[in-house]
């Protein structure tokens, strides 16, 4: 069969000359993707079945590594598609002029999901699924430790959850960044950071990979995780004793696909995008191992009971009007602040928050204004952020954190490492002082 096909192709190319040479190379499709094999093999099989004779190569890279790979190989590109979640990764590639514009043919896909546009307004990358962040938990763990089920971000700040929560860092995962930013926008700069620090004070760990969070919840290393929806939904569908909920402050963002500039197999790449957005492709997203929210509202007809539908349930992802420009203006600063204040000082932060929680517990039913004042001071110290919202979005300040210099003439004063060291000094001292004050308050009660 295959041999005859090859023979035929060879024979045909002799007759048709140059034009078929292009088609002969169309027999392959190289996709650079950050998705796990569950997702990639499902789509690979379905696509190869629909387009016999085409072999799809799924090249698995972490999103950041994928971007790096495309940048480094641009001069001699062999990849056709980039397929990943974080929109900002596509923004970087677009900025480097490494993507190809493409106009989809599929009809019936709305403009927006939640408050977010599904497709890149400039026409470079297309959303194929939506994802939002939420809370997942291990039911056995909560039962064994007698913990209530959390529903909102604020719930996670409660003392009962101390040492039971896990999340990834925004600098490590684009979607975690989005969650952090969503809460900062939803609650405002000061209060947003205060919420994150109170949650982080309850954390068991900050994982290096975003998958480390569902993995930890699934195996019961910690009970509660802040995760992207499909991690929770697919873990549940795979049989783990876990569940997932969207808090009211959350954002839905599209996961995307784009054709790489100078793609060797452009036609096939376009076919793949059309397939992904077709009814057939969208239905595959509801596979128990994948469990992503389709962008085509029709696809939800086949969804399992209780499956979230953002096109019907307006409460999902509408709690915050997400401001993409604001997020972009302070992207690296937020990452850096989170790492300095939380990731790298987690032990100090945990100690301080625990001391405050203990003091507050002791204060219950006691009337002691002096102790109350000390606790309030301790809280202020923990919650203090080295810079305000205006400074965080300040362009000149941000350029210190941007690694690519725009022009040689842009004058940048200060270095990231230098500034982080100043922040770190302040944060470390604050946490230590807060712990001391809280302990003092407790001893007074």
């Amino acid at each position: 069969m295959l041999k005859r096909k090859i023979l035929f192709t060879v024979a045909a190319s002799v007759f048709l000359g140059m034009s078929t040479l292009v088609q002969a190379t169309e027999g392959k499709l190289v996709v650079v993707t950050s998705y796990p094999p569950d997702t990639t093999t499902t789509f690979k099989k379905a696509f190869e079945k629909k387009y016999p004779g085409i072999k799809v190569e799924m090249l698995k890279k972490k999103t950041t590594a994928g971007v790096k790979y495309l940048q480094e190989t641009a001069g001699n590109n062999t990849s056709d598609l980039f397929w990943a979640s974080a929109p900002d990764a596509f923004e970087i590639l677009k900025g480097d002029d490494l993507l190809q514009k493409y106009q989809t043919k599929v009809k019936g896909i709305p403009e927006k999901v939640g408050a977010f546009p599904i497709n890149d307004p400039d026409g470079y990358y297309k959303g194929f699924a939506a994802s939002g962040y939420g809370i997942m938990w291990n039911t056995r763990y909560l039962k064994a430790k007698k913990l209530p089920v959390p529903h909102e971000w604020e719930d996670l700040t409660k003392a009962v959850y101390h040492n039971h929560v896990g999340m990834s860092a925004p600098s490590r995962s684009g979607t975690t960044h989005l969650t952090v930013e969503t809460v900062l926008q939803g609650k405002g700069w000061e209060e947003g950071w205060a919420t994150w620090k109170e949650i982080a004070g309850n954390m068991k760990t900050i994982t290096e990979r975003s998958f480390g969070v569902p993995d930890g919840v699934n195996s019961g290393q910690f009970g509660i995780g802040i995760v992207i929806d499909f991690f929770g939904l697919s873990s549940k569908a795979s049989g783990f004793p876990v569940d997932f909920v969207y808090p009211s402050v959350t954002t839905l963002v599209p996961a995307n696909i784009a054709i790489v500039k100078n793609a060797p197999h452009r036609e096939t790449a376009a076919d793949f995008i059309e397939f992904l957005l077709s009814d057939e492709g969208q239905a595959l997203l509801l596979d128990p191992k994948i469990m992503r929210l389709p962008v085509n509202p029709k696809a939800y007809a086949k969804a399992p009971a209780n499956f979230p539908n953002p096109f019907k349930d307006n409460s999902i992802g509408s709690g915050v009007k997400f401001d993409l420009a604001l997020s972009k203006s302070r992207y690296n600063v937020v990452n850096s602040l989170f790492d300095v204040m939380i990731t790298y000082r987690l032990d100090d932060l945990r100690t301080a928050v625990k001391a405050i929680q203990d003091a507050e517990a002791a204060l219950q039913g006691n009337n002691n204004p002096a102790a109350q004042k000390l606790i309030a001071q301790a809280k202020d110290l923990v919650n203090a952020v080295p810079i305000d919202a205006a400074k965080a979005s300040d362009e000149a300040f941000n350029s210190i954190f941007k690694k690519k210099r725009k022009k040689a003439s842009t004058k940048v004063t200060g270095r990231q490492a230098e500034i982080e060291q100043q922040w770190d000094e302040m944060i470390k001292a604050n946490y230590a002082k807060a712990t001391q004050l809280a302990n003092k308050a407790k001893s007074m009660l």
Partner: protein
Amino acid sequence: MTKQRGPVFAGLLIALILLAFLVIPVVQVIYVAFQDPASGALTLVNFSDFFRSSLFQESFFNSFYVAAMSVVVATIIALPLAYFTSRFNFAGAAIIQTLGFIPLIMPPFVGAVAMLLLFGENGSVNLLLDEHLGFTIPFMEGLNGVIFVQSIHYFPFILINLSAALNNVDRSMEESAQNLGASGMRLFRRIVFPLAMPGYVAGAALVFLKVFDDLGTPLLLNVNTMLAPQAYLRISSIGISDPMGYVISVILVVFSLFALWTSMLALKGKDYSTLQKGGGGMLKRELRGGQKIAAYALILLILLLVLSPHIGLTLLSFGTVWSYSPLPDAYTLDHYRMVFGSAREYITNTLLYAGLAASFDVILATAIAYIVYRTGMKGRKWLDYIATASLAVPGVVLGIGYLRTYNDFNVPFLDKPMASWWVIIVVALTIRRLPYALRACVAALQQVSVMLEEAAQNLGATRSRTLWRVVVPLMSGGMIAGFVTSFATASVELSATIMLVSQESDAPLAFGIYEFMQSASGRGAGAALGMIAVVIVGLGTYFSHRVIERSHKLRTAERQIAEEVT
């Protein structure tokens, strides 16, 4: 001395290889460390930032502490295994040595997953302890967890090098000591261990350097405040051009070289070579009844501990759902069925890549060892330093360096970039694993007395004939140890390959396991693939042990016959 055209040529060739595949790609990446982030001018300001930052100081201290403690713990694990199996008649010595070696052939990230399931705060052991005795032990908390996992993972470096060294010690020395009345601990402390020092130091230095530079384990255990994770986190999150990540890389390289230099200094001025190779002298001793039981119990306990990652992995690969419980809920073969189809390609690739890389490593390492310790070539020590420095180059940095250097270079006849050709993966593995083979070969050569070579040359043998007929056969134990270490560790390498695999059909096992382990339903399948890897590489190791044992016995037998005839 005679003219050394051969060695000079070989030396230049090796220097060229190291330059092309280690120095240039790495410099391509780390020159950023010396650039002012704002102006791009050359500067040392980034280094002063490093030393002023309390976070980096803390990371430096933690890395040092973890590496040193891991050497201590690894020594405690490795010493009894090496000593008992090489000095006493011990049933199953080959099996024990192989089992003791197996921890190396598991990708570190897989090992840490299994260890968390068993020893984590809510792992099997602690759940059982909590239920029955009401307390838990924080095995895996913070730096303890890193030390625990690292020493279990890397102690085979000490085991393998120490065993080779113990087998090489002239047993007539021990015999003399015994005749003079030394026995037990005293014999070991004063005679055996000091004579095996080069092997021990080689192994301990490897453990130290490996742990000092290792990335995977701290990351999986979510320990950030160490140097390698800091470098990685900064490069991969802030951006490839962030100077601090490379500053840390430079510091890792420099400090690793410093540690290596210290270990050489420790051996300096002492002569460890012996004229007679082990096996010829005294026979292996017998243990008395009580001692035997104690020794077996100790070894069994150690094996149970070091094999716990594998026990965890086995359970994971056969279990259905394993969540917050001492054991999986039920057992199934589904995971194996799932990976069966894709496993064959991964296995072939892995054996091909690791086999080629380890062969190149042994050839290069033998040549470097010979040039450094047996010739007077100018700058010869630098071959050793540079080759060893690759130990300190994070895999990611090497991977990016290759992409940067070789992407625009098309392979003749194939017409595709060299950076996306599978051979580049072999090259990366060769470079990354060269230090292992090198330390083993250097230790082996140090134990060969120069007098033997001089004797051969006095009898009229040419230099190359002496090399092939005298030096290489005497070094063979160390060379095989080097091959096995390089092969086994290359087959589970991930950090550089993850950057360099450009198509699915080129992917090795570790890559496949990593892929599977990234999804909830793929954990069991990834574990199954991991088990397949362990079994295959384990069998390979076991058979090479058997080959060594047999040739050893054969030689002893021949010698005895020869002695009887005369």
